[in-house]
């Protein structure tokens, strides 16, 4: 069977802000290599950063004994990023809507919203323990040729 995967890389990282920065920078580089345009690359990088912050801060609570796994897969039609933590789990249905009038002036709670705004698909999977976020951005036919 033909394998359409063009590249895949993954990291297991500490629960730290350095890890967040590394994951963000990797996302930016891979999105550029995948041929996304100059407006889309920062959006992908930001979405991935937000997912990494969620994993480090809300998932693992900076626990040095817990790790974050980030994987990047470029296929012929998509860039697929998976970020997982070892935290207590995240129920996406219980995340308040940051655009609701009662939440608009909250000082936090916009990360998942921005991820959804910038990616084409966002999926949550419970790992028991932990949560895996899958972020997908589709490539155009022109980008797929790179």
């Amino acid at each position, binding site marked *: 069977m033909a394998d359409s995967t063009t590249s895949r890389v993954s990291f297991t990282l500490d629960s730290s*802000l350095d890890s967040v920065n590394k994951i963000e920078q990797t996302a930016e580089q891979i999105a550029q290599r995948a041929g996304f345009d100059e407006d889309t690359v920062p959006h992908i990088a930001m979405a991935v950063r937000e997912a990494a*912050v969620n994993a480090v801060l809300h998932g693992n609570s900076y626990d040095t004994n817990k790790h974050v796994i980030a994987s990047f897969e470029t296929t012929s039609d998509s860039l697929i990023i998976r970020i997982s933590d070892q935290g207590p789990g995240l129920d996406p249905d219980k995340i308040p809507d*940051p*655009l609701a009038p009662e939440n608009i002036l909250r*000082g936090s709670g*916009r990360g998942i919203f*921005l991820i959804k705004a910038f990616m084409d698909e966002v999926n949550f999977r419970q790992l028991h323990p932990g949560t895996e976020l899958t972020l997908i951005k589709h490539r155009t036919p022109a980008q797929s040729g790179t």
Partner: protein
Amino acid sequence: MSMKVKTRQVDGITILDLSGRITLGEGSVTIRDAVRDVLAKGSNKILLNLGDISYIDSSGIGELVSAFTTVKNSGGELKLLNLTKKVHDLLQITKLYTVFDVKDDEATAISSFTK
């Protein structure tokens, strides 16, 4: 690159010229401390100049909102100046653009504060 703040006074308004990134663990704390310092010195009319902000994440957005509410609750005013396209778009997406009083000219911004 972390965030830097320069503070200056114009006609009784405290202008914070911010540069760099406003993100979790970097600029967020810096903004919080800077606004707190201004309020502690008795000034509550603050203009945040974001013209040299290269990047902001959800934590940074949250910190701007917190600064806005903190200053407002103290009876003051906090306004934003010189948004880059990236910051402008983020505030639009998060529906915060109309919450903040956003200016693109410093003199106009200064004169818009309540005397």
